[in-house]
């Protein structure tokens, strides 16, 4: 014990008088327990390092100690932690590191002061702002200025054969007439498409287009398309409306819903129904949103909400009167997207100093009508930059619906390199396995089957089902391949009873009336502006979910091909954090992790940060799903809390459960969880339609 203190004193001395270099070598040579309060001095070494002069050295020392396992929450006899010291001395860089490593700014010392109090008392406003922004205690910062820019970096178009990358360019390229050869056509199409995006910059629209080759000759559609866009582009560079019209030709039209808001938000939903829509194969819904982006955003703020409400009001009316219950769900999904998109867009627009430059149109399509077409996946990469905080993140958006490049069946001689991939081949594995897949599956599950023949096939199918033995009882479980299994094999997380139940069967998705009623009640309550809500009534907040991309594995793209319940299971399993954010810094929840990442930390005591670092270490970005945009903070807190309760704190990286406000606070836990479940369900629909957005540091390749 005595010797340990001796070394600790030596360490103390080095920090105070020595150089970083000597500290580094000392730490390497000696294995000391640094999380101790040194007698006489009354503080630990980390306390000293955080406050030592000059700041440069202090930064280095803090970093070194944290990397060697220093505890940012080590309190001395007065209850003072290194976090307090950093706040008192205004050592912002140190503070960021400390909080990133799990330091708790709300911890109070024995006098009852938290880091916030000290920051205020010592007039360390930088620290104060930082704490408020990152920790999100209260919405104290005046004005909600947008502290970030989001610019399109590049667009990646991948098909099975080609990977094309497009960067934004500003100069004009003249359009040529459509060429005749198929390869060129497609290339040209790609070029047009990206050109559209490039030229529309700073107004980016048009992520996905779907052209139906059966009902319309492709060439003309293509032409249509480009003309439309280019025309709009040239005349609308600076202001006024961008009206892009999309053609979608559908053989049988059942219903058509049009909702036109004040902001010229067009919303159409076309559904074509054919005999076996039970598996959703011949079932298509397309939504196209056209946004108008007026040059002067000054007068929009008010109207925004009008749009929103008008959309909402129209929603139930239309669904009930026009669409049979069969479709109402799909429509629900579509509306959820539409709404979310609108909200996002609104959020982007009514702030004058906002530099967010993209407002994308969304195309939702689930259509496998057969025929020969090429699927091209479009990835967009955006660069998110927050200069104040020195944060750069790359946001990769994997668009939901692949761009469908149609082509007719072998009418022309198809060059081998452009062999068309028929969608049919990628259709979901049906209940019937062919012998070799069946064998493979069985072998993979550790069972060696004998010859699979007519007389034995059924037996092996049964065997396979028994082996899979998932929680799902339905026959379709048989067709759930690999992925479903991975989920089942993962160390099981435990959720609340409601979610657990919902994971077992997908039946509940067919009847959501109770849930919807709960949500409606909750939402209505928050529209009461006369009440005093925590953090005011400015609609600046949203709720977000962080998902693990290693588990979602680009779920939105697969979702159309697999049963919805499986998507739900994957979705729920991949969530690792639920939080509430403000739109001025939508990605601030990643800042802590990024701060550590830049310093080459690989571990953190904060579970959430640790998880994010793990994901980044695996060379993928964190999937960040923003939902329920533009709500008042109290509402966002409530939604957050409901979702945390639904998922259960143990299955998340959240530290504590959330707070409920308004009428929801008086509900029994079961109802709150049901609300949470429904919110998650909505979140999934949004996720499936928006596509995955992965956020990663810019130096990650």
């Amino acid at each position, binding site marked *: 014990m005595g010797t340990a203190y001796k070394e600790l004193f030596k360490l103390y001395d080095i920090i105070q008088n020595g150089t970083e270099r000597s500290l580094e070598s000392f730490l390497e040579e000696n294995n000391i327990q640094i999380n101790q309060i040194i007698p006489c001095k009354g503080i630990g070494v980390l306390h000293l390092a955080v406050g030592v002069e000059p700041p440069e050295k202090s930064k280095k020392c803090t970093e070194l100690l944290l990397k060697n396992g220093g505890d940012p929450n080590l309190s001395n006899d007065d209850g003072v932690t290194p976090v307090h010291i950093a706040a008192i001395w205004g050592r912002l860089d140190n503070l960021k590191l400390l909080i990133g490593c799990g330091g708790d700014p709300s911890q109070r010392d024995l006098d009852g002061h938290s880091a916030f109090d000290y920051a205020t008392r010592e007039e360390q406003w930088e620290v104060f702002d930082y704490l408020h922004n990152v920790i999100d205690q209260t919405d104290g910062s005046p004005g909600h200025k947008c502290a970030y820019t989001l610019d399109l970096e590049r667009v990646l178009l991948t098909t099975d054969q080609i990977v094309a990358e497009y960067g934004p360019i500003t100069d004009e390229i003249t359009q040529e007439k459509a060429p005749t050869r198929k390869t060129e056509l497609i290339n040209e199409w790609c070029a047009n498409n990206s050109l559209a995006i490039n030229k529309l910059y700073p107004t980016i629209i048009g992520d996905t287009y779907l052209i139906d080759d059966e009902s319309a000759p492709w060439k003309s559609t293509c032409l249509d398309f480009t003309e439309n866009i280019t025309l709009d582009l040239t005349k609308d560079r600076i202001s006024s409306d961008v009206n892009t019209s999309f053609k979608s030709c559908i053989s049988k039209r059942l219903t058509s819903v049009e909702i036109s808001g004040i902001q010229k938000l067009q919303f159409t939903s076309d559904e074509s129904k054919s005999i076996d829509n039970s598996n959703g194969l011949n079932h298509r819904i397309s939504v196209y949103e056209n946004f108008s982006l007026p040059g002067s955003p000054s007068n929009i703020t008010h109207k925004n909400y009008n749009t929103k409400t008008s959309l909402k009001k129209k929603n139930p009316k239309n669904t009930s009167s026009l669409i049979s219950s069969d479709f109402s769900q799909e429509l629900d999904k579509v509306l959820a997207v539409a709404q979310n998109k609108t909200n996002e867009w609104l959020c982007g627009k009514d702030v004058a100093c906002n530099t967010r430059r993209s407002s994308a149109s969304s195309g939702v399509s689930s259509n496998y009508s057969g025929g020969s077409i090429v699927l091209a996946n479009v990835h967009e990469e955006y660069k998110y930059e927050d200069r104040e905080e020195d944060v750069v993140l790359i946001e990769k958006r994997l668009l939901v619906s692949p761009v469908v490049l149609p082509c007719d069946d072998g009418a022309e001689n198809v060059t081998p390199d452009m062999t068309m991939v028929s969608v049919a081949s990628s259709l979901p594995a049906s209940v019937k396995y062919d012998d070799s897949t069946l064998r493979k599956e069985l072998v993979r599950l550790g069972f*060696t*089957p*004998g*010859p699979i*023949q007519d*007389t*034995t096939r*059924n*037996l092996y199918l049964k*065997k396979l089902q028994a082996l899979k033995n998932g929680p799902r009882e339905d026959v379709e479980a048989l067709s759930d391949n690999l992925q479903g299994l991975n989920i089942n094999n993962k160390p099981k997380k435990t959720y609340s009873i409601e979610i657990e139940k919902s994971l077992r069967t997908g039946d509940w998705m067919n009847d959501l009336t109770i849930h919807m009623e709960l949500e409606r009640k909750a939402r209505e309550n928050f529209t009461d502006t006369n009440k005093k809500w925590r953090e005011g009534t400015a609609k600046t907040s949203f709720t977000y979910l962080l998902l693990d991309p290693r588990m979602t594995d680009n779920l939105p793209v697969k979702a159309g091909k697999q049963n919805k319940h499986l998507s739900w299971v994957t979705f729920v399993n991949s969530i690792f954090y639920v939080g509430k954010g403000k739109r001025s810094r939508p990605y601030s929840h990643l800042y802590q992790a990024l701060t550590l990442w830049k310093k080459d930390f690989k571990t953190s005591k904060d579970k959430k940060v640790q998880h994010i670092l793990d994901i980044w270490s695996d060379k993928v970005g964190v999937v960040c799903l923003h939902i329920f945009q533009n709500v008042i903070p109290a509402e966002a807190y409530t939604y957050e809390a409901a979702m945390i309760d639904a998922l259960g704190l143990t299955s998340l990286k959240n530290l504590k459960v959330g707070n409920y406000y308004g009428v929801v606070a008086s509900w029994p836990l079961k109802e709150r969880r049901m609300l949470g479940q429904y919110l998650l369900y909505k979140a999934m629909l949004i996720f499936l339609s928006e596509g995955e957005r992965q956020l990663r540091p810019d130096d990650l390749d």
Partner: protein
Amino acid sequence: MSSTSQKHRNFVAEPMGEKPVTELAGVGEVLGKRLEVAGFDKAYTVLGQFLVLKKDKELFQEWLKDTCNANSKQSADCYQCLKDWCDEFL
């Protein structure tokens, strides 16, 4: 092994030759008829299936249940019968 039936012991005692299915332990008149309808008229065809299923008890019992609606006692007897026969003569 003391609890095996006379029928079982008879079957396992010698090569099966051209014995009909009904000679198998666990397969009586009714099941025998059903098996015949399904094309398994000789004991050796059932043996064939038994071997194709790699002598797997579970699968074989399942197969017998599917083919002739055998109950678990019957299928277990039949399995054991073929199993013992194989141990002896294969």
